[in-house]
Structures are given as C-alpha cells and as structure tokens.
C-alpha cells in the first residue's frame, strides 16, 4: 500500500490549545484514486486537509506527500492543489487574474480545460471576483482545482452556493478529466448521496478520530436496514453490529453492519423486512453513535447528518 500511496498520515494528533482537532489519525490516500473525506462539522476534515497541504504542522505524528513532508516544501507543493471552502482572492482580482495566477503556480496547468470550464460554468472572465455570487466564486475554485491537474488535488466543500446543475457539471467534468488523467483526489463534502458513486475510498472522521477507512464498494454492501417486530430485530441485531435503531410501538427499524453474506437471507427468513443501506445512511448511522457506546434500541433523534448550506 505504502509504495502506491500519494499521502501517508501516520498517527497524527493536532491540538489547538485545549481543543484536540485530530487524535491519533493514521490513513493513506492511494495514488490515482478518489477519496471522500466525510464527517460532521468540526470533525477535523479541514484540519486534516491543511496538514496534508502543508498549511499546518501536526502537534505529533507525521504527514508525507509523495514521500516527503509537505510543510514549506515547494517541490511537493507544486504538485498539490487545495481548493478551500470559501477561498478568498485579492480584492482587485478578476476571474481571469485568478486563472493566470493558478497557471503560473501549477506546472500541469491545462489552459484549454480552464477555458472550456469557464464556458461550462458561464463565468464572466473579466468580472472582479469580489462581485461574483457565492456560487460563481465556488465555480472559480472548481475550475482551478480541475485545470491544475495537480497529482494531488483536494477539494474542501467546494460547492457552497452552487446550484444542482453546476454541481452535476462539476461531477461530470471531474470524472471525465480524471479518466483522461488519473490523479489523487480528496473531496470533503456533506452531499454524500450526490458524490457517493464517484468515490473509490471513504474516510469518515468523527471528533478527530477515524471511524471508517474503507473501499466504497465494500461499505455499500456492509450494512442493511432491517425492520419488523422489536424482539426479532433485537435478536438479529445482537448477532451483528448494531449502529442505530428507532422504534415506534412494537415496530423497530435498525441499521446493522453485517459481516457475512448470509445475514440478509437469515433476516428475511425470520420475517424481517430487509433493505439495502446506502453510503449516506451508513455514514449517518455511524456518526450518530457516540464512541464506546452501543446504540440504544429506542427512539432516536432524526437522522439529519447535516444541513446543506
């Protein structure tokens, strides 16, 4: 794994005074893969991205990008593009100035791609970025992220204010360009359902710790939602890994991680209704669990992971 890793994070802890933003995080981002960095607000996603892009130094532990420490290391950082949430640009910058600056910064810059994305997103090249709408400013970041063609590209909540059409455009262009020129992409987002099919890996962090670090396809298959009479659901849940449960009267619905393929059939045979659980449902159920505590078999608060900004 290490030989093909673009990024290696080894036992990283990051403290800000009293607050521990990351607590013993270890992970790798494989070369030429798309990873979804998921988790609730304040989970530590942005901090992790800042460490990987050399914007911060960990309190303890180490970060390696293409085999070297990224901090103040220009030869590494020219291969890294970080599109930040609410990225700011100098006040007088027009859209085309931001693109020219990026073109100088990134050796693999693809000017044709930038031009065609500018058209796709319908951005006025000569307008001052300050005067753009929220969504249009996000589009500038997305264009830079894609056209940089940086071997490691990180998008941190890249689409504040982007409408559904523009987001679809982003996914389509990301997939098309990634297919043409594979690279390492890390994408943090709350819109899990939208990006799930694009992901190859999922890294879920919660309160600074890694909750899940796995192949997206295995995760998709790893959980089921079972419902039926409370005692049957409980009996099934006891044999597997209960993540979250809600009850209404004598009826219980539970999200359960299963280890063997026969579990679904076994649940169906006892008369339970078995539904597949998608990535978003799994992530929500896991994030609702407090560490070290099993989910109680009783009504739980609504499963809203995140409001969409």
């Amino acid at each position, binding site marked *: 794994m290490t030989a093909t890793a673009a990024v290696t994070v080894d036992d990283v802890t990051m403290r800000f005074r009293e607050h521990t933003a990351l607590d013993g995080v270890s992970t790798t981002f494989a070369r030429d893969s798309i990873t979804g960095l998921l988790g609730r607000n304040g989970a530590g996603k942005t901090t992790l991205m800042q460490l990987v892009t050399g914007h911060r130094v960990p309190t303890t532990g180490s970060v390696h990008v293409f085999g070297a420490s990224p901090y103040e290391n220009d030869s590494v950082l020219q291969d890294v593009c970080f599109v930040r949430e609410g990225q700011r640009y100098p006040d007088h910058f027009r859209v085309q100035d931001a693109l020219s600056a990026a073109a100088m910064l990134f050796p693999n810059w693809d000017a044709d791609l930038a031009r065609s994305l500018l058209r796709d997103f319908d951005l006025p090249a000569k307008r001052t970025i300050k005067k753009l709408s929220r969504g249009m400013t996000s589009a500038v970041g997305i264009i830079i992220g894609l056209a940089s063609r940086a071997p490691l590209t990180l998008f941190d909540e890249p689409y504040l204010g982007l409408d559904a059409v523009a987001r679809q455009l982003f996914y389509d262009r990301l997939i098309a360009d990634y297919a043409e020129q594979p690279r390492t992409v890390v994408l943090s987002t709350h819109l899990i359902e939208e990006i799930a099919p694009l992901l190859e890996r999922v890294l879920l962090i919660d309160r600074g710790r890694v909750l899940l670090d796995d192949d997206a396809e295995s995760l*998709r298959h790893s959980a089921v939602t079972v419902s039926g009479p409370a005692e049957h659901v409980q009996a099934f849940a006891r044999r597997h890994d209960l993540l979250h449960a809600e009850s209404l009267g004598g009826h219980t619905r539970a999200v359960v991680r299963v280890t063997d393929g026969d579990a679904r059939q076994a649940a169906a045979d006892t008369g339970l209704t078995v539904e597949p659980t998608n990535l978003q449902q799994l992530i929500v159920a896991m994030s609702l669990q407090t560490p070290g505590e099993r989910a109680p078999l009783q009504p739980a608060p609504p499963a809203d992971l995140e409001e969409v900004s």
Partner: protein
Amino acid sequence: MNEDAGPIFRQVADQIENAIVDGSLAEESQAPSSNELAAFHRINPATAAKGLNQLVADGVLYKRRGVGMFVAPGAREQLLKRRRSEFADQYVRPLMTEAQKLGISPRELTALIADWEDQ
C-alpha cells in the same frame, strides 16, 4: 446507477449482461470501455473497470490487448443458462413467500399463472 441497489460494479456488470441477453450487444462486438461507462453512469472509473473485469473472469467478455473488451462467443447462451438456474431463487421464492402470507395456496397460484398466460 442506483446507490441503494448493492455494489455498483455488480450493477455495471448486470447491465452489460442484460445487453448481451437481449441481443443489443452482440457476440464478438466491442463492450464499452471503463471510461465510457464511468462518464455515462457518473461513477468512478475504477468501479467501472471492476465490473468489466468481473465479466472477463466469468468468461462473458474477453480482452484484446490494446483494443478493448469484446463479448465472448457463446456468452449469451452461458448467461441464459445461469439466469434460468437462478430464476427459482430470485423470482419464485419471493412469490411463494408473499403467497403464503396472503394464504394463497400453490394450487391457486398455479391457476393464477395459467390465467395470466390467457390474458
């Protein structure tokens, strides 16, 4: 692709199999590439490639180096054979379970199917 319907690579493979079974993808014709599948279904190219490789492993597709993947001769017959053998488990079993719940006897069920044919 449907996020709720199990592994996406399996869905990719199923869809190509469907095209072979219904004849829209003829034997010895070229299957879509992983990049084409990725763009069309808006999925990760590695996932699309996994679906294609599954079909190669099953002998449904074969690789021509530097050209792409092609439908193997006899693939359609092979798929039909497999699907017929899976038919009971995938279709008859849920039918029987629901019939049992509703108190429909196997005899009544047989009559229903016979009526269906007449329609």
